[in-house]
Every structure is written in structure tokens, then in C-alpha cells.
């Protein structure tokens, strides 16, 4: 009976636990093989209990680390997007806007100084703005911008016609242009600085994701080791059970042989 109970206990899933009473009965058995099997079962139960706890703990850890990794990846993506936005803004401010301001300031300075080339510069600026507004409109540029450019071109043309009397305006425009160029360059630098900070954040988040990934792989390995222990325990029990079964079978065969021998002798 004890053998049967133990067999039921050992052939169940590796995490099945043989009842304490059954185990005590088996350990007290007069049959050494049964007692040995019971001992092995008891030893395995202690070993597998730790392994089962390990598996559960590592499973929880894997879930947590997976969440951490997802969160870090999301942070990296957001930081990268922000970095891209601020980088573009920095390029536009520090590049295009600052250059345009510089050109305007230079042109205004030439006009304000009454240089010989002033009428030509004004004519070119006027023509440039008008053509840009026209071409921009055909290419699908925002109509408001086109309208603004056309209006500015017309204003420059009107002022250009009376540029001698509007010297003060051109001087102011030159100064404003210079100041705007500086402000745009500074703004571009600031935006680039912010973009760099976001880029650093993105790298940090990627490093965090990598860390979580490594920890997750480690947890997987620990779980695998714990599962190996459970598997080994199940295999050991299986072997022990087979061995005891063989011993019992041998005993039975021995008894049969002795009886057969006695029958032959009589």
C-alpha cells in the first residue's frame, strides 16, 4: 500500500507533493527499498519546493522587467521625437531664419547708406519677393505666406521708390535685421542645446531598456535552472521508483523460483 501511495505521488507532476502521512508510513516501512524510496521522495520534495519558489519569483521578475523595458523604449521614442523637433527648430532658426535676417540687414544697410547699388538691390528684393510669392503659390505654399511675401514685396517697392526720404526706416531695418539675426542664431543654439539634452535622454532610456533586457535574460536563465532542478528531481524519482519496482519484481520472481524449486524437490 505504501508502495502504491508513493508511486502515485512520484508519478504525478513534479510539483505534486506526497502527503506527509504517506511519507511517514513509507519511511517506517520494514522493506528497505520502500524506505529508501520514501527517503528520496522526502529529499526531492525539499529540493523542488525551493525550485518552485524560484520559478514563481523569476516569472514575476520577468513580467516586471518586461514592463520596465517597454516603458524605457517608450521614453526613448518620445525623447527621440522631441530631439528631432528641437533639432529641426534649431536648424531653421540658426540657419534659414538667421541667414534671411542677415540678408535683409545687409540689403537695408546698403539702402540706408545711399549706395549706388541701392535702387538695384531694392528692385531685386522686390522682384524676388513677388516671384517667390507667385511660384510658392503654384507649388502649394501656404496662401497666407504668399500673400505676406507679395505684400512685403509691394511695400519694399513703394519704399524703394522714395528711399531717399526713408533713410531712417532703412537704418532701423538694418539694425532690426542684425538684432534679429543674432536672436535667431541664439534661439537656434538654444534649440540645438535642448535637442542635445533630449538626445541624451533618449540614449539614457535606451541604456535603461538594455539593462532591463539583460536582467530579463538573467531571470529567464534562473528560471530555466529552477526548471532543470524540477526536471532532475522528477527524473530521479522516476528512476528510484523503477528501481524499487524492479527490486519488488525480483523478490517476487525469487519467491516464485524458490516455490518452484521446492515443488520440484518434493
Amino acid at each position, binding site marked *: 500500500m505504501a508502495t502504491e501511495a508513493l508511486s502515485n505521488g512520484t508519478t504525478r507532476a513534479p510539483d505534486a507533493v506526497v502527503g506527509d502521512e504517506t511519507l511517514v508510513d513509507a519511511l517506517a516501512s520494514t522493506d528497505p527499498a520502500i524506505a529508501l524510496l520514501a527517503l528520496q521522495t522526502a529529499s526531492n520534495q525539499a529540493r523542488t519546493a525551493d525550485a518552485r519558489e524560484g520559478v514563481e519569483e523569476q516569472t514575476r521578475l520577468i513580467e516586471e522587467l518586461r514592463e520596465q523595458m517597454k516603458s524605457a523604449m517608450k521614453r526613448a521614442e518620445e525623447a527621440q521625437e522631441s530631439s528631432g523637433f528641437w533639432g529641426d527648430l534649431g536648424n531653421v532658426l540658426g540657419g534659414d531664419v538667421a541667414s534671411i535676417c542677415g540678408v535683409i540687414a545687409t540689403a537695408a544697410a546698403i539702402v540706408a547708406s545711399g549706395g549706388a547699388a541701392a535702387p538695384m538691390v531694392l528692385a531685386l528684393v522686390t522682384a524676388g519677393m513677388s516671384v517667390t510669392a507667385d511660384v510658392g503659390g503654384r507649388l502649394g505654399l501656404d496662401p497666407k505666406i504668399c500673400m505676406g511675401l507679395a505684400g512685403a514685396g509691394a511695400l519694399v517697392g513703394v519704399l524703394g521708390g522714395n528711399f531717399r526720404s526713408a533713410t531712417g526706416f532703412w537704418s532701423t531695418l538694418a539694425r532690426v535685421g542684425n538684432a534679429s539675426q*543674432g536672436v535667431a542664431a541664439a534661439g537656434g543654439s538654444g534649440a540645438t542645446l535642448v535637442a542635445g539634452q533630449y538626445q541624451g535622454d533618449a540614449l539614457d532610456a535606451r541604456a535603461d531598456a538594455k539593462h532591463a533586457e539583460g536582467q530579463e535574460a538573467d531571470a529567464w536563465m534562473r528560471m530555466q535552472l529552477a526548471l532543470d532542478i524540477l526536471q532532475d528531481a522528477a527524473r530521479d524519482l522516476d528512476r528510484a521508483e523503477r528501481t524499487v519496482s524492479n527490486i519488488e519484481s525480483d523478490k517476487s520472481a525469487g519467491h516464485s523460483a524458490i516455490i518452484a524449486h521446492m515443488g520440484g524437490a518434493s
Partner: protein
Amino acid sequence: MNDIGSSDPMVQLAALMLEADELRAKTDEDELRAAQRARMQALDAEVHALHEAAHQTRVGAVVGGIAAAAGGAAAALGSGLTPVGKQPTGDAGVLLKSGEALEQLAGPLGRLFGDAPSLDAQADAKQAEQQAADAGTRRDLAQQHHDRVRSEQDRTIATTESIIESEAQGNWALIANV
């Protein structure tokens, strides 16, 4: 562990094989753990290098940004101090030229203090990643070898059991027939 007692040379040989397999399995387990430790150390180094790269990127952005902003401000001030239509001279000229120079230097300074060290750190991270991958491969190989050894042990035990069983049956048959 393999306390198989038998006078049969085959069984004794099997016992020796099992002991050798057990030793190999233990060695594989040690190798597996050592490889995993090495992998984790390499991953830590990679993560540290990536954080270092992030830090250097920020430093580079700050240095480049401050240089460009200071240069832009100086150039704008110099330009503002210069009368319209005149060449910048004196303090205004110095401010304008130094501001422009600083603006020009902002990019290289940013690369020197940011991009270059950051790329160095990223290269270190890549190297550590490679080491981690190597350690991971060693670990996988140890695991495969370990599984194979266990499988061989199972086969050896099954064969030994079969031999012992045959021996026992033969003995009982002899006794019955005496």
C-alpha cells in the same frame, strides 16, 4: 550518486561512465554559471557605456550651445554698436569678429566635447555588447552540452538497469532449475 554494485564488468563500466558523465555535467553547470556571470558583467559595462555616451552628448550640446549663443550675442552686439554703413572698428569690431569666430567654433567645440567622447563611449558599449554575446554563446553551448550529458546518463542507466534485470532473471531461472 551512482552507487551501483555489481560483479558484472559491464555494470561496473556503466557505473564509471555515469560518474564521468556526472563530473562532466557538473563542469558544464559551472561553465554555464561562469558564462552567465561574464554576460551580466559585459551587459553592465554596456549599460554604463551607454549612460556615459548620453552624458557626453548632453555636455557637447551644452558646450556647443553656449558657445554659439555667446558668439551670436557678441556678434549682434558688435553689429549693433557699428553705425549703419560703416565698417566695424574698435570694440565693436572686436566684439563682432570674436562673436563670429565663437559662432564658427561652436560646432567643432560641440563635437570635441560631446560627439567624440559620446562616440567613444558608444564604441565601448558595442564592444561590451559583443563580449556579452560571446558569453551568451558560451552559456548556450554549455547548456547544450549539459543536456546531452544528461541524456547520455539516462541511456547508460537504462542499459545498466536492463543488464541487471537480465542478470537477476537468469539467476532466478538457474535457482528454479537446480
